[in-house]
Protein backbone atom coordinates (compact mmCIF):
# COMPACT_ATOMS: atom_id res chain seq x y z
CA UNK A 1 0.00 0.00 0.00
CA UNK A 2 2.68 2.45 1.09
CA UNK A 3 4.98 1.49 -1.76
CA UNK A 4 2.05 1.97 -4.17
CA UNK A 5 1.53 5.46 -2.80
CA UNK A 6 5.21 6.37 -3.02
CA UNK A 7 5.49 5.00 -6.55
CA UNK A 8 2.50 7.00 -7.71
CA UNK A 9 3.73 10.22 -6.14
CA UNK A 10 7.20 9.76 -7.64
CA UNK A 11 5.63 9.31 -11.06
CA UNK A 12 4.45 12.91 -10.93
CA UNK A 13 8.03 14.16 -11.25
CA UNK A 14 8.83 12.90 -14.78
CA UNK A 15 5.40 14.02 -15.99
CA UNK A 16 5.92 17.55 -14.63
CA UNK A 17 9.35 17.49 -16.29
CA UNK A 18 7.81 16.59 -19.66
CA UNK A 19 5.14 19.27 -19.31
CA UNK A 20 7.83 21.89 -18.66
CA UNK A 21 9.72 20.64 -21.72
CA UNK A 22 6.64 21.00 -23.93
CA UNK A 23 5.92 24.48 -22.55
CA UNK A 24 9.53 25.57 -22.98
CA UNK A 25 9.58 24.74 -26.67
CA UNK A 26 6.03 26.01 -27.16
CA UNK A 27 7.02 29.39 -25.77
CA UNK A 28 9.97 29.54 -28.15
CA UNK A 29 7.38 29.94 -30.91
CA UNK A 30 6.34 33.28 -29.50
CA UNK A 31 7.47 36.16 -31.66
CA UNK A 32 9.20 39.02 -29.91
CA UNK A 33 11.90 39.38 -27.29
CA UNK A 34 10.97 38.76 -23.62
CA UNK A 35 13.81 41.07 -22.53
CA UNK A 36 12.10 43.94 -24.35
CA UNK A 37 8.91 43.23 -22.44
CA UNK A 38 10.70 43.21 -19.10
CA UNK A 39 12.70 46.34 -19.82
CA UNK A 40 9.74 48.35 -21.05
CA UNK A 41 9.57 50.78 -23.96
CA UNK A 42 11.92 53.39 -22.42
CA UNK A 43 14.92 51.08 -21.94
CA UNK A 44 18.23 51.68 -23.68
CA UNK A 45 19.85 48.91 -25.75
CA UNK A 46 22.45 48.44 -22.97
CA UNK A 47 19.74 47.87 -20.39
CA UNK A 48 18.01 45.37 -22.65
CA UNK A 49 21.27 43.54 -23.22
CA UNK A 50 21.85 43.58 -19.47
CA UNK A 51 18.43 42.03 -18.80
CA UNK A 52 18.91 39.53 -21.58
CA UNK A 53 22.14 38.46 -19.99
CA UNK A 54 20.76 38.35 -16.44
CA UNK A 55 17.92 35.94 -17.31
CA UNK A 56 20.10 33.93 -19.65
CA UNK A 57 18.46 34.82 -22.96
CA UNK A 58 21.84 35.28 -24.66
CA UNK A 59 22.65 31.61 -24.06
CA UNK A 60 22.06 28.88 -26.65
CA UNK A 61 18.61 27.30 -26.56
CA UNK A 62 19.73 24.03 -25.00
CA UNK A 63 21.62 25.85 -22.26
CA UNK A 64 18.50 27.88 -21.51
CA UNK A 65 16.49 24.68 -21.41
CA UNK A 66 18.93 23.06 -19.03
CA UNK A 67 18.84 26.14 -16.79
CA UNK A 68 15.06 26.02 -16.72
CA UNK A 69 14.93 22.32 -15.83
CA UNK A 70 17.72 22.43 -13.25
CA UNK A 71 16.20 25.59 -11.80
CA UNK A 72 12.85 23.85 -11.33
CA UNK A 73 14.54 21.01 -9.50
CA UNK A 74 15.57 23.48 -6.79
CA UNK A 75 12.23 25.31 -6.84
CA UNK A 76 13.19 28.17 -9.19
CA UNK A 77 10.11 28.87 -11.32
CA UNK A 78 11.71 31.60 -13.43
CA UNK A 79 11.20 35.34 -13.59
CA UNK A 80 7.62 36.58 -13.59
CA UNK A 81 7.07 39.89 -15.39
CA UNK A 82 3.99 40.62 -13.30
CA UNK A 83 5.53 40.06 -9.90
CA UNK A 84 9.11 41.06 -10.73
CA UNK A 85 10.44 37.83 -9.31
CA UNK A 86 9.51 34.23 -8.68
CA UNK A 87 5.86 33.53 -9.50
CA UNK A 88 5.68 30.73 -6.94
CA UNK A 89 4.56 32.70 -3.83
CA UNK A 90 1.71 34.36 -5.73
CA UNK A 91 0.58 31.09 -7.23
CA UNK A 92 0.62 29.37 -3.86
CA UNK A 93 -1.25 32.28 -2.26
CA UNK A 94 -3.99 31.94 -4.86
CA UNK A 95 -4.14 28.14 -4.71
CA UNK A 96 -6.44 27.72 -1.65
CA UNK A 97 -9.29 29.62 -3.35
CA UNK A 98 -9.16 27.24 -6.32
CA UNK A 99 -8.92 24.18 -4.08
CA UNK A 100 -11.89 25.39 -2.05
CA UNK A 101 -13.95 25.98 -5.20
CA UNK A 102 -13.09 22.56 -6.62
CA UNK A 103 -13.72 20.78 -3.33
CA UNK A 104 -17.15 22.39 -2.90
CA UNK A 105 -17.95 21.46 -6.51
CA UNK A 106 -17.05 17.82 -5.92
CA UNK A 107 -19.08 17.85 -2.69
CA UNK A 108 -22.08 19.28 -4.55
CA UNK A 109 -21.66 16.62 -7.23
CA UNK A 110 -21.79 13.87 -4.64
CA UNK A 111 -24.63 15.41 -2.62
CA UNK A 112 -26.82 16.23 -5.63
CA UNK A 113 -25.73 13.88 -8.43
CA UNK A 114 -25.75 10.53 -6.63
CA UNK A 115 -29.14 10.94 -4.85
CA UNK A 116 -30.68 12.23 -8.09
CA UNK A 117 -29.44 9.14 -9.91
CA UNK A 118 -30.66 6.81 -7.15
CA UNK A 119 -34.11 8.44 -7.07
CA UNK A 120 -34.25 8.21 -10.84
CA UNK A 121 -33.38 4.53 -10.85
CA UNK A 122 -35.85 3.65 -8.08
CA UNK A 123 -38.65 5.54 -9.88
CA UNK A 124 -37.78 4.41 -13.34
CA UNK A 125 -40.18 5.72 -16.00
CA UNK A 126 -42.08 7.93 -13.55
CA UNK A 127 -42.21 11.72 -13.52
CA UNK A 128 -39.17 12.14 -11.28
CA UNK A 129 -37.05 9.97 -13.61
CA UNK A 130 -38.06 12.02 -16.62
CA UNK A 131 -37.50 15.28 -14.76
CA UNK A 132 -33.97 14.21 -13.82
CA UNK A 133 -33.34 13.13 -17.42
CA UNK A 134 -34.37 16.56 -18.73
CA UNK A 135 -32.15 18.36 -16.22
CA UNK A 136 -29.25 16.05 -17.12
CA UNK A 137 -29.58 16.79 -20.85
CA UNK A 138 -29.78 20.52 -20.07
CA UNK A 139 -26.76 20.53 -17.75
CA UNK A 140 -24.72 18.70 -20.38
CA UNK A 141 -25.63 21.21 -23.07
CA UNK A 142 -25.37 24.54 -21.24
CA UNK A 143 -21.72 25.60 -20.81
CA UNK A 144 -20.67 26.27 -17.23
CA UNK A 145 -20.11 29.99 -17.79
CA UNK A 146 -23.62 30.29 -19.24
CA UNK A 147 -25.02 28.57 -16.17
CA UNK A 148 -22.95 30.98 -14.08
CA UNK A 149 -24.34 33.96 -16.00
CA UNK A 150 -27.88 32.63 -15.56
CA UNK A 151 -27.32 32.16 -11.83
CA UNK A 152 -25.96 35.69 -11.50
CA UNK A 153 -28.86 37.12 -13.47
CA UNK A 154 -31.52 35.42 -11.38
CA UNK A 155 -30.03 34.89 -7.93
CA UNK A 156 -28.02 38.09 -7.54
CA UNK A 157 -29.38 40.68 -9.93
CA UNK A 158 -33.09 39.83 -9.81
CA UNK A 159 -33.47 38.36 -6.35
CA UNK A 160 -30.40 39.71 -4.59
CA UNK A 161 -29.92 36.51 -2.64
CA UNK A 162 -26.27 35.79 -3.29
CA UNK A 163 -23.17 37.91 -3.94
CA UNK A 164 -22.18 37.73 -7.61
CA UNK A 165 -18.44 38.17 -7.30
CA UNK A 166 -15.43 37.93 -5.04
CA UNK A 167 -14.57 35.76 -2.11
CA UNK A 168 -16.14 37.10 1.06
CA UNK A 169 -18.20 34.74 3.18
CA UNK A 170 -19.40 31.15 2.72
CA UNK A 171 -22.24 32.30 0.48
CA UNK A 172 -19.82 33.50 -2.21
CA UNK A 173 -18.84 29.96 -3.10
CA UNK A 174 -22.36 28.66 -3.78
CA UNK A 175 -22.94 30.03 -7.29
CA UNK A 176 -19.46 29.43 -8.73
CA UNK A 177 -19.35 25.91 -7.31
CA UNK A 178 -22.81 25.11 -8.64
CA UNK A 179 -21.97 26.46 -12.10
CA UNK A 180 -18.70 24.52 -12.13
CA UNK A 181 -20.29 21.31 -10.89
CA UNK A 182 -23.39 21.33 -13.15
CA UNK A 183 -21.92 19.17 -15.90
CA UNK A 184 -20.40 16.72 -13.46
CA UNK A 185 -23.67 16.52 -11.49
CA UNK A 186 -25.42 15.57 -14.72
CA UNK A 187 -22.84 12.94 -15.67
CA UNK A 188 -22.88 11.42 -12.20
CA UNK A 189 -26.69 11.38 -12.00
CA UNK A 190 -26.92 9.63 -15.36
CA UNK A 191 -24.18 7.16 -14.52
CA UNK A 192 -25.63 6.37 -11.08
CA UNK A 193 -29.06 5.79 -12.59
CA UNK A 194 -27.80 3.41 -15.28
CA UNK A 195 -25.57 1.41 -12.96
CA UNK A 196 -28.26 1.23 -10.26
CA UNK A 197 -30.79 -0.13 -12.75
CA UNK A 198 -28.27 -2.71 -13.86
CA UNK A 199 -27.47 -3.71 -10.27
CA UNK A 200 -31.11 -3.83 -9.12
CA UNK A 201 -31.71 -6.61 -11.64
CA UNK A 202 -29.09 -8.88 -10.14
CA UNK A 203 -29.72 -11.99 -8.14
CA UNK A 204 -28.19 -10.78 -4.89
CA UNK A 205 -30.87 -8.13 -4.61
CA UNK A 206 -33.61 -10.74 -4.73
CA UNK A 207 -31.73 -12.88 -2.21
CA UNK A 208 -31.29 -9.98 0.17
CA UNK A 209 -34.96 -9.07 -0.11
CA UNK A 210 -35.96 -12.72 0.32
CA UNK A 211 -34.06 -13.06 3.55
CA UNK A 212 -36.15 -10.21 4.92
CA UNK A 213 -33.98 -7.12 4.53
CA UNK A 214 -35.91 -3.95 3.94
CA UNK A 215 -35.77 -2.36 0.53
CA UNK A 216 -33.94 0.72 1.77
CA UNK A 217 -31.32 -1.40 3.50
CA UNK A 218 -30.73 -3.39 0.33
CA UNK A 219 -30.47 -0.26 -1.77
CA UNK A 220 -28.07 1.58 0.51
CA UNK A 221 -25.96 -1.29 1.87
CA UNK A 222 -25.68 -3.47 -1.21
CA UNK A 223 -26.79 -1.89 -4.46
CA UNK A 224 -25.37 1.59 -3.94
CA UNK A 225 -22.06 0.21 -2.73
CA UNK A 226 -21.65 -1.76 -5.94
CA UNK A 227 -22.96 1.04 -8.11
CA UNK A 228 -20.53 3.56 -6.63
CA UNK A 229 -17.44 1.99 -8.17
CA UNK A 230 -18.00 3.23 -11.74
CA UNK A 231 -19.43 6.49 -10.38
CA UNK A 232 -16.24 7.25 -8.47
CA UNK A 233 -14.29 6.59 -11.67
CA UNK A 234 -16.40 9.10 -13.56
CA UNK A 235 -15.84 11.74 -10.89
CA UNK A 236 -12.09 11.12 -10.96
CA UNK A 237 -11.84 11.15 -14.74
CA UNK A 238 -13.82 14.36 -14.96
CA UNK A 239 -11.79 16.13 -12.29
CA UNK A 240 -9.53 17.52 -14.99
CA UNK A 241 -12.56 19.07 -16.57
CA UNK A 242 -13.39 20.63 -13.21
CA UNK A 243 -9.91 22.16 -12.97
CA UNK A 244 -10.11 23.47 -16.52
CA UNK A 245 -13.63 24.78 -16.02
CA UNK A 246 -12.42 26.61 -12.92
CA UNK A 247 -10.56 29.02 -15.22
CA UNK A 248 -13.73 30.39 -16.79
CA UNK A 249 -15.78 30.25 -13.62
CA UNK A 250 -13.13 32.08 -11.59
CA UNK A 251 -12.97 34.76 -14.25
CA UNK A 252 -16.74 35.12 -14.33
CA UNK A 253 -17.14 35.39 -10.56
CA UNK A 254 -13.88 37.32 -9.99
CA UNK A 255 -12.82 34.40 -7.83
CA UNK A 256 -9.24 34.94 -6.60
CA UNK A 257 -7.90 31.54 -7.67
CA UNK A 258 -5.11 30.40 -9.97
CA UNK A 259 -7.44 30.09 -12.98
CA UNK A 260 -8.14 33.82 -12.84
CA UNK A 261 -4.40 34.39 -12.41
CA UNK A 262 -3.72 32.28 -15.51
CA UNK A 263 -5.95 34.50 -17.66
CA UNK A 264 -4.15 37.57 -16.33
CA UNK A 265 -0.82 35.90 -17.09
CA UNK A 266 -1.90 35.09 -20.65
CA UNK A 267 -3.07 38.68 -21.12
CA UNK A 268 0.31 39.99 -19.97
CA UNK A 269 2.28 37.26 -21.77
CA UNK A 270 3.95 36.39 -18.47
CA UNK A 271 5.37 33.01 -19.48
CA UNK A 272 7.05 32.11 -16.20
CA UNK A 273 3.71 32.59 -14.47
CA UNK A 274 1.85 30.61 -17.14
CA UNK A 275 4.33 27.79 -16.74
CA UNK A 276 4.07 27.81 -12.95
CA UNK A 277 0.27 27.69 -12.98
CA UNK A 278 0.18 24.96 -15.62
CA UNK A 279 2.47 22.79 -13.51
CA UNK A 280 0.20 23.32 -10.50
CA UNK A 281 -2.82 22.31 -12.60
CA UNK A 282 -1.08 19.17 -13.85
CA UNK A 283 0.09 18.14 -10.39
CA UNK A 284 -3.41 18.81 -9.05
CA UNK A 285 -4.90 16.66 -11.79
CA UNK A 286 -2.50 13.79 -11.02
CA UNK A 287 -3.19 14.03 -7.28
CA UNK A 288 -6.94 13.86 -7.90
CA UNK A 289 -6.34 10.77 -10.04
CA UNK A 290 -4.38 9.23 -7.20
CA UNK A 291 -7.15 10.08 -4.72
CA UNK A 292 -9.66 8.46 -7.07
CA UNK A 293 -7.64 5.27 -7.18
CA UNK A 294 -7.35 5.21 -3.39
CA UNK A 295 -11.10 5.73 -3.03
CA UNK A 296 -11.65 3.02 -5.58
CA UNK A 297 -9.65 0.62 -3.44
CA UNK A 298 -11.58 1.62 -0.33
CA UNK A 299 -14.87 0.82 -2.03
CA UNK A 300 -13.77 -2.31 -3.84
CA UNK A 301 -11.67 -4.55 -1.56
CA UNK A 302 -10.81 -6.87 -4.45
CA UNK A 303 -8.47 -4.22 -5.87
CA UNK A 304 -6.42 -3.78 -2.71
CA UNK A 305 -3.89 -6.47 -3.51
CA UNK A 306 -3.35 -5.31 -7.06
Amino acid at each position, binding site marked *: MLSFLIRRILRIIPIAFCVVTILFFLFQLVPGDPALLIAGPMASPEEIAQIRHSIGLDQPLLVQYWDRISGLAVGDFGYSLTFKGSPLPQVLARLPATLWLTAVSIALTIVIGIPAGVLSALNRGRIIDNAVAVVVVGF*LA*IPNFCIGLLLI*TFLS*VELGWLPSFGFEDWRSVIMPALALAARLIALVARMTRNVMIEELRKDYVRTARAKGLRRNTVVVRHVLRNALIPVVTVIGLQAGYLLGGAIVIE*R*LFSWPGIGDLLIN*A*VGLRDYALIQGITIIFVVGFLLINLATDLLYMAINPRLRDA
Partner: protein
Amino acid sequence: MREASLALRRRFQLPRSTNFTLTLGGIILAVYVLMAVFGRFIAPYGIDDQDLLSSLAPPSAEHWFGTDALGRDIFSRVIVGAYYTLSAAMVSVALASIAGVIIGILSGYGRGLLATALAALIDLLLTIPSLVLAVVITSVINSSVVGLIVATTITFIAPMARLVRSRTLEIQQEDYVQAARGLGAGNPRIMLRHVLPNAMTVILVEASLAAGQAVLVATALGFLGLGVPPPAPEWGTMLGEGREYLGSAPHLVLCPALAISILILGFNLFGDGLRDRLDTRSE
Protein backbone atom coordinates in the same frame (compact mmCIF):
# COMPACT_ATOMS: atom_id res chain seq x y z
CA MET B 1 -39.22 -10.91 -23.89
CA ARG B 2 -36.04 -8.93 -24.30
CA GLU B 3 -34.47 -11.69 -26.38
CA ALA B 4 -37.60 -11.88 -28.49
CA SER B 5 -37.60 -8.19 -29.23
CA LEU B 6 -33.89 -8.27 -30.00
CA ALA B 7 -34.44 -11.13 -32.42
CA LEU B 8 -37.27 -9.22 -34.03
CA ARG B 9 -35.14 -6.12 -34.45
CA ARG B 10 -32.30 -8.10 -35.87
CA ARG B 11 -34.65 -9.83 -38.30
CA PHE B 12 -35.99 -6.58 -39.64
CA GLN B 13 -32.70 -4.73 -39.20
CA LEU B 14 -34.29 -2.13 -36.99
CA PRO B 15 -32.00 0.04 -34.90
CA ARG B 16 -31.86 -0.76 -31.22
CA SER B 17 -33.64 2.37 -30.14
CA THR B 18 -35.74 4.89 -31.95
CA ASN B 19 -33.83 7.38 -34.00
CA PHE B 20 -35.54 10.28 -32.30
CA THR B 21 -32.34 11.68 -30.78
CA LEU B 22 -30.38 11.28 -34.01
CA THR B 23 -33.11 12.99 -36.04
CA LEU B 24 -33.59 15.86 -33.59
CA GLY B 25 -29.84 16.38 -33.33
CA GLY B 26 -29.55 16.29 -37.10
CA ILE B 27 -32.32 18.89 -37.53
CA ILE B 28 -30.73 21.22 -34.98
CA LEU B 29 -27.34 20.92 -36.67
CA ALA B 30 -28.86 21.46 -40.11
CA VAL B 31 -30.46 24.72 -38.91
CA TYR B 32 -27.12 25.91 -37.55
CA VAL B 33 -25.33 24.99 -40.76
CA LEU B 34 -27.88 27.02 -42.73
CA MET B 35 -27.35 29.93 -40.34
CA ALA B 36 -23.59 29.67 -40.74
CA VAL B 37 -23.70 29.52 -44.53
CA PHE B 38 -26.51 31.96 -45.32
CA GLY B 39 -26.39 34.03 -42.10
CA ARG B 40 -25.64 37.34 -43.76
CA PHE B 41 -28.57 36.91 -46.18
CA ILE B 42 -31.06 35.75 -43.53
CA ALA B 43 -30.22 38.33 -40.88
CA PRO B 44 -32.78 41.17 -40.83
CA TYR B 45 -30.14 43.80 -39.97
CA GLY B 46 -26.45 44.21 -40.71
CA ILE B 47 -24.19 42.99 -37.91
CA ASP B 48 -22.43 46.35 -37.65
CA ASP B 49 -25.48 48.57 -38.15
CA GLN B 50 -25.57 50.81 -35.12
CA ASP B 51 -28.68 52.52 -33.86
CA LEU B 52 -27.48 54.42 -30.81
CA LEU B 53 -30.94 55.82 -30.10
CA SER B 54 -32.28 52.36 -29.30
CA SER B 55 -29.26 50.90 -27.51
CA LEU B 56 -29.82 48.12 -24.95
CA ALA B 57 -33.44 47.80 -26.07
CA PRO B 58 -35.18 44.68 -24.73
CA PRO B 59 -36.56 42.09 -27.19
CA SER B 60 -39.41 43.46 -29.28
CA ALA B 61 -41.20 42.77 -32.56
CA GLU B 62 -38.65 44.94 -34.31
CA HIS B 63 -35.56 43.43 -32.65
CA TRP B 64 -36.42 39.85 -31.65
CA PHE B 65 -33.44 39.46 -29.33
CA GLY B 66 -33.17 43.17 -28.48
CA THR B 67 -30.17 45.37 -29.17
CA ASP B 68 -26.75 45.74 -27.56
CA ALA B 69 -24.94 48.75 -26.13
CA LEU B 70 -24.27 50.14 -29.62
CA GLY B 71 -27.83 49.48 -30.76
CA ARG B 72 -26.84 46.55 -32.95
CA ASP B 73 -29.50 43.90 -33.56
CA ILE B 74 -28.59 40.87 -31.44
CA PHE B 75 -30.76 38.47 -33.44
CA SER B 76 -28.78 39.26 -36.59
CA ARG B 77 -25.49 39.01 -34.74
CA VAL B 78 -26.40 35.63 -33.26
CA ILE B 79 -27.38 34.28 -36.69
CA VAL B 80 -24.23 35.51 -38.40
CA GLY B 81 -22.11 34.42 -35.41
CA ALA B 82 -23.02 30.78 -36.08
CA TYR B 83 -20.33 30.88 -38.76
CA TYR B 84 -17.50 31.44 -36.25
CA THR B 85 -18.47 28.89 -33.63
CA LEU B 86 -19.63 26.20 -36.03
CA SER B 87 -16.61 26.45 -38.29
CA ALA B 88 -14.20 26.59 -35.36
CA ALA B 89 -15.82 23.53 -33.80
CA MET B 90 -16.11 21.47 -36.97
CA VAL B 91 -12.74 22.33 -38.49
CA SER B 92 -10.89 21.76 -35.24
CA VAL B 93 -12.63 18.47 -34.54
CA ALA B 94 -11.98 17.30 -38.10
CA LEU B 95 -8.29 18.17 -37.83
CA ALA B 96 -8.03 16.74 -34.32
CA SER B 97 -9.72 13.54 -35.49
CA ILE B 98 -7.30 13.07 -38.37
CA ALA B 99 -4.31 13.66 -36.13
CA GLY B 100 -5.81 11.61 -33.30
CA VAL B 101 -6.62 8.68 -35.58
CA ILE B 102 -3.11 8.62 -37.06
CA ILE B 103 -1.45 8.85 -33.65
CA GLY B 104 -3.91 6.40 -32.11
CA ILE B 105 -3.53 3.70 -34.77
CA LEU B 106 0.26 4.04 -34.97
CA SER B 107 0.64 3.89 -31.19
CA GLY B 108 -1.83 1.02 -30.84
CA TYR B 109 -0.63 -1.03 -33.77
CA GLY B 110 3.09 -0.44 -33.75
CA ARG B 111 5.56 -1.97 -31.36
CA GLY B 112 8.72 0.05 -31.69
CA LEU B 113 10.04 3.15 -30.02
CA LEU B 114 7.69 5.40 -32.02
CA ALA B 115 4.59 3.62 -30.70
CA THR B 116 5.82 3.83 -27.11
CA ALA B 117 6.72 7.49 -27.51
CA LEU B 118 3.33 8.33 -29.04
CA ALA B 119 1.47 6.49 -26.29
CA ALA B 120 3.48 8.41 -23.68
CA LEU B 121 2.72 11.68 -25.47
CA ILE B 122 -1.02 10.93 -25.41
CA ASP B 123 -0.94 10.21 -21.67
CA LEU B 124 1.10 13.34 -21.09
CA LEU B 125 -1.27 15.63 -22.97
CA LEU B 126 -4.21 14.12 -21.12
CA THR B 127 -2.77 15.27 -17.79
CA ILE B 128 -3.19 18.92 -18.83
CA PRO B 129 -6.84 19.93 -18.36
CA SER B 130 -8.20 20.72 -21.82
CA LEU B 131 -9.17 24.33 -21.18
CA VAL B 132 -5.81 25.02 -19.51
CA LEU B 133 -4.09 23.65 -22.61
CA ALA B 134 -6.26 25.78 -24.90
CA VAL B 135 -5.65 28.94 -22.86
CA VAL B 136 -1.88 28.34 -22.75
CA ILE B 137 -1.81 27.85 -26.53
CA THR B 138 -3.68 31.10 -27.11
CA SER B 139 -0.89 32.85 -25.22
CA VAL B 140 1.45 31.89 -28.06
CA ILE B 141 -0.91 32.60 -30.93
CA ASN B 142 -2.60 35.90 -31.56
CA SER B 143 -6.34 35.90 -31.00
CA SER B 144 -8.06 35.28 -34.32
CA VAL B 145 -10.17 32.62 -35.98
CA VAL B 146 -7.03 30.67 -36.86
CA GLY B 147 -5.70 30.93 -33.31
CA LEU B 148 -9.04 29.73 -31.99
CA ILE B 149 -9.01 26.72 -34.31
CA VAL B 150 -5.40 25.80 -33.48
CA ALA B 151 -6.04 25.97 -29.73
CA THR B 152 -9.24 23.95 -29.97
CA THR B 153 -7.68 21.38 -32.30
CA ILE B 154 -4.73 20.61 -30.05
CA THR B 155 -7.10 20.22 -27.12
CA PHE B 156 -9.02 17.41 -28.80
CA ILE B 157 -6.17 15.37 -30.32
CA ALA B 158 -5.21 13.44 -27.19
CA PRO B 159 -8.71 12.20 -26.22
CA MET B 160 -9.33 10.98 -29.76
CA ALA B 161 -5.90 9.34 -29.94
CA ARG B 162 -6.49 7.54 -26.65
CA LEU B 163 -9.81 6.18 -27.85
CA VAL B 164 -8.48 5.04 -31.22
CA ARG B 165 -5.47 3.49 -29.56
CA SER B 166 -7.54 1.34 -27.23
CA ARG B 167 -9.86 0.33 -30.08
CA THR B 168 -6.83 -0.57 -32.22
CA LEU B 169 -5.46 -2.74 -29.43
CA GLU B 170 -8.81 -4.57 -29.34
CA ILE B 171 -9.10 -4.99 -33.09
CA GLN B 172 -5.58 -6.36 -33.33
CA GLN B 173 -6.66 -9.39 -31.34
CA GLU B 174 -9.48 -10.20 -33.78
CA ASP B 175 -9.28 -13.29 -35.93
CA TYR B 176 -9.68 -11.40 -39.17
CA VAL B 177 -6.55 -9.39 -38.49
CA GLN B 178 -4.63 -12.59 -37.79
CA ALA B 179 -6.11 -14.08 -40.94
CA ALA B 180 -5.13 -11.08 -43.05
CA ARG B 181 -1.63 -11.26 -41.65
CA GLY B 182 -1.51 -14.98 -42.39
CA LEU B 183 -2.48 -14.25 -45.96
CA GLY B 184 0.52 -12.01 -46.23
CA ALA B 185 -1.03 -8.55 -45.85
CA GLY B 186 1.48 -5.89 -44.87
CA ASN B 187 1.13 -3.57 -41.92
CA PRO B 188 -0.08 -0.52 -43.89
CA ARG B 189 -2.73 -2.64 -45.57
CA ILE B 190 -3.96 -4.10 -42.27
CA MET B 191 -4.07 -0.65 -40.67
CA LEU B 192 -5.97 0.96 -43.53
CA ARG B 193 -8.23 -1.90 -44.65
CA HIS B 194 -8.99 -3.63 -41.37
CA VAL B 195 -8.23 -1.53 -38.30
CA LEU B 196 -9.47 1.84 -39.57
CA PRO B 197 -12.87 0.70 -40.94
CA ASN B 198 -13.58 -1.23 -37.76
CA ALA B 199 -12.66 1.70 -35.57
CA MET B 200 -14.79 4.08 -37.63
CA THR B 201 -17.91 3.74 -35.46
CA VAL B 202 -16.15 4.88 -32.29
CA ILE B 203 -14.36 7.62 -34.21
CA LEU B 204 -17.58 9.10 -35.63
CA VAL B 205 -19.40 9.03 -32.29
CA GLU B 206 -16.45 10.52 -30.45
CA ALA B 207 -16.03 13.22 -33.11
CA SER B 208 -19.67 14.24 -32.80
CA LEU B 209 -19.54 14.43 -29.00
CA ALA B 210 -16.16 16.20 -29.17
CA ALA B 211 -17.69 18.81 -31.50
CA GLY B 212 -20.12 19.73 -28.71
CA GLN B 213 -17.17 20.11 -26.35
CA ALA B 214 -15.29 22.10 -28.98
CA VAL B 215 -18.17 24.57 -29.11
CA LEU B 216 -17.79 24.90 -25.36
CA VAL B 217 -14.01 25.46 -25.51
CA ALA B 218 -14.25 27.89 -28.42
CA THR B 219 -16.96 30.02 -26.81
CA ALA B 220 -15.22 29.86 -23.43
CA LEU B 221 -12.06 31.26 -25.05
CA GLY B 222 -14.18 34.01 -26.63
CA PHE B 223 -15.78 34.75 -23.29
CA LEU B 224 -12.34 35.05 -21.70
CA GLY B 225 -11.33 37.54 -24.38
CA LEU B 226 -8.91 35.08 -25.98
CA GLY B 227 -10.97 34.13 -29.01
CA VAL B 228 -12.06 36.13 -32.02
CA PRO B 229 -11.74 39.80 -31.06
CA PRO B 230 -14.71 42.22 -31.26
CA PRO B 231 -16.52 43.55 -33.23
CA ALA B 232 -16.90 40.06 -34.74
CA PRO B 233 -20.23 38.60 -33.57
CA GLU B 234 -18.64 35.52 -32.03
CA TRP B 235 -21.00 34.21 -29.34
CA GLY B 236 -18.39 33.83 -26.60
CA THR B 237 -17.05 37.32 -27.27
CA MET B 238 -20.61 38.66 -27.22
CA LEU B 239 -21.16 37.01 -23.83
CA GLY B 240 -17.99 38.58 -22.49
CA GLU B 241 -19.10 42.02 -23.67
CA GLY B 242 -22.70 41.57 -22.50
CA ARG B 243 -21.57 40.62 -19.02
CA GLU B 244 -21.21 44.32 -18.18
CA TYR B 245 -24.94 44.84 -18.67
CA LEU B 246 -26.31 41.87 -16.71
CA GLY B 247 -28.33 44.12 -14.43
CA SER B 248 -29.95 46.34 -17.04
CA ALA B 249 -30.05 44.17 -20.15
CA PRO B 250 -29.78 40.42 -19.44
CA HIS B 251 -30.87 39.61 -23.01
CA LEU B 252 -27.36 40.55 -24.15
CA VAL B 253 -26.16 37.42 -22.42
CA LEU B 254 -29.18 35.14 -22.54
CA CYS B 255 -29.55 35.12 -26.33
CA PRO B 256 -26.00 34.08 -27.27
CA ALA B 257 -26.02 31.63 -24.32
CA LEU B 258 -29.16 30.06 -25.74
CA ALA B 259 -27.57 29.79 -29.20
CA ILE B 260 -24.49 28.09 -27.75
CA SER B 261 -26.46 25.69 -25.56
CA ILE B 262 -28.80 24.55 -28.33
CA LEU B 263 -25.84 23.94 -30.64
CA ILE B 264 -24.10 21.81 -27.99
CA LEU B 265 -27.42 20.02 -27.40
CA GLY B 266 -27.59 19.30 -31.13
CA PHE B 267 -24.10 17.77 -31.20
CA ASN B 268 -24.80 15.77 -28.02
CA LEU B 269 -28.09 14.38 -29.34
CA PHE B 270 -26.52 13.61 -32.70
CA GLY B 271 -23.59 11.82 -31.06
CA ASP B 272 -25.77 9.83 -28.68
CA GLY B 273 -28.15 8.92 -31.49
CA LEU B 274 -25.27 7.91 -33.70
CA ARG B 275 -23.90 5.69 -30.98
CA ASP B 276 -27.26 3.96 -30.52
CA ARG B 277 -27.59 3.55 -34.25
CA LEU B 278 -24.11 2.25 -35.02
CA ASP B 279 -22.97 0.51 -31.89
CA THR B 280 -23.50 -3.21 -32.29
CA ARG B 281 -20.79 -4.20 -29.86
CA SER B 282 -22.69 -3.55 -26.66
CA GLU B 283 -25.34 -6.17 -27.46
